[in-house]
């Protein structure tokens, strides 16, 4: 299940960064997931709760911002929303469409709690 190994990479990345910042725990993680990135967000959330056990991110809430795909026609240069890789240009009918957004898969930010003194 690649959502599991991906959830582990997220935990690893935020946990390391949070430690650097002297966090006691991570309360929230903001992800950007393009609709063409091949990530099932429900499955990712499910795996995340298992992957984060015992890490600083154990109680973190995953906030996922899903970005729509955008294609650009290489023939007539118009751009338009796409939900699949096999989009057809609505202007000229060309199949030579380049994906210009929707493949993102990023950790945007996280919220940590510092040790209260």
């Amino acid at each position, binding site marked *: 299940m*690649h959502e599991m190994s991906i959830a582990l990479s997220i*935990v690893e990345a935020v946990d390391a960064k949070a430690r650097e910042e002297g966090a006691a725990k991570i309360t929230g993680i903001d992800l950007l997931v393009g609709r063409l990135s*091949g990530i099932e967000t429900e499955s990712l959330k499910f795996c995340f709760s298992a992957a984060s056990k015992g890490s600083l991110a154990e109680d973190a809430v995953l906030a996922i911002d899903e970005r729509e795909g955008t294609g650009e026609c290489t023939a007539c240069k118009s751009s338009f929303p796409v939900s699949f890789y*096999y989009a057809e240009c609505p202007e000229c009918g060309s199949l*030579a469409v380049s994906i210009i957004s929707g493949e993102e898969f*990023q950790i945007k*930010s*996280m919220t940590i709690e510092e040790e209260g003194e």
Partner: protein
Amino acid sequence: MCDTCGCSSEGGAVLRKPGNSEYHVHITGHGNGHVHDHDHEHSRHHDHDHGHTHHHPEGHSRKIAMEQDVLLKNNLLAERNRGYFEARNIVALNFLSSPGSGKTSLLEKTIPVLRQHVPVAVIEGDQQTTNDADRIHALGVPVIQVNTGSGCHLDAFMINRSLRELDLQDNSLLCIENVGNLVCPAMFDLGEALKVVIISTTEGDDKPLKYPAMFHEADICILNKTDLLPYVDFDAARCRENAMRVNHHLEWFEVSVKSGEGLDAWTERIMKMVKRN
């Protein structure tokens, strides 16, 4: 538990070599080990909390910007592999397909031809068994098996580790057979020069539309088992059209590993890459 050495290693991949049942190396990719380490510190921290009386045990909240690719670590390692291949003039190909499309059969059939011109080595990815590595070993070329266990794809770390175990020659060809899976391996760059996706005539000509990410990422598509075309309801031209819709840069080959039809064009394509290098 590992059934070869009885160690308690769970998850993580294992490297094996055919004809050497003693040899196996446990590798952990995505920081499973780290999570264990953290477990300790976490509980220590709690003890600490209980030992003192804090006024604000919940502490202060702070937002930290990261802007980091989730697959960053894999991608960085893949680039290191790529640098290693380039420096040593090694052409690395990543073979991808659903289970049973004929990845290993294609290698078995073409390696004896290719190795007359260029040294060839193979990395085999499967969840379990050394069956595929055994088949390659029988050809007499260096091979290492990566058993991914529950993992559904090879990643750059597994390849990086395998490279240390395989004594690759300069100016050679490395074939990497990924785990049979038309979904997940598409996301993980290994550092290869080209991704080669194989589809066979028993799978349905709409596969490229059903699994677009894989065909979108691939550089070359090979339609295999063309000897079965008279018996199956599979339109090769439509399959190609579907694949081109997903990726208009895709190079297309049609072969039958069984009859040998179309294989010359494929081996010539590889030889051109090896020579150009």
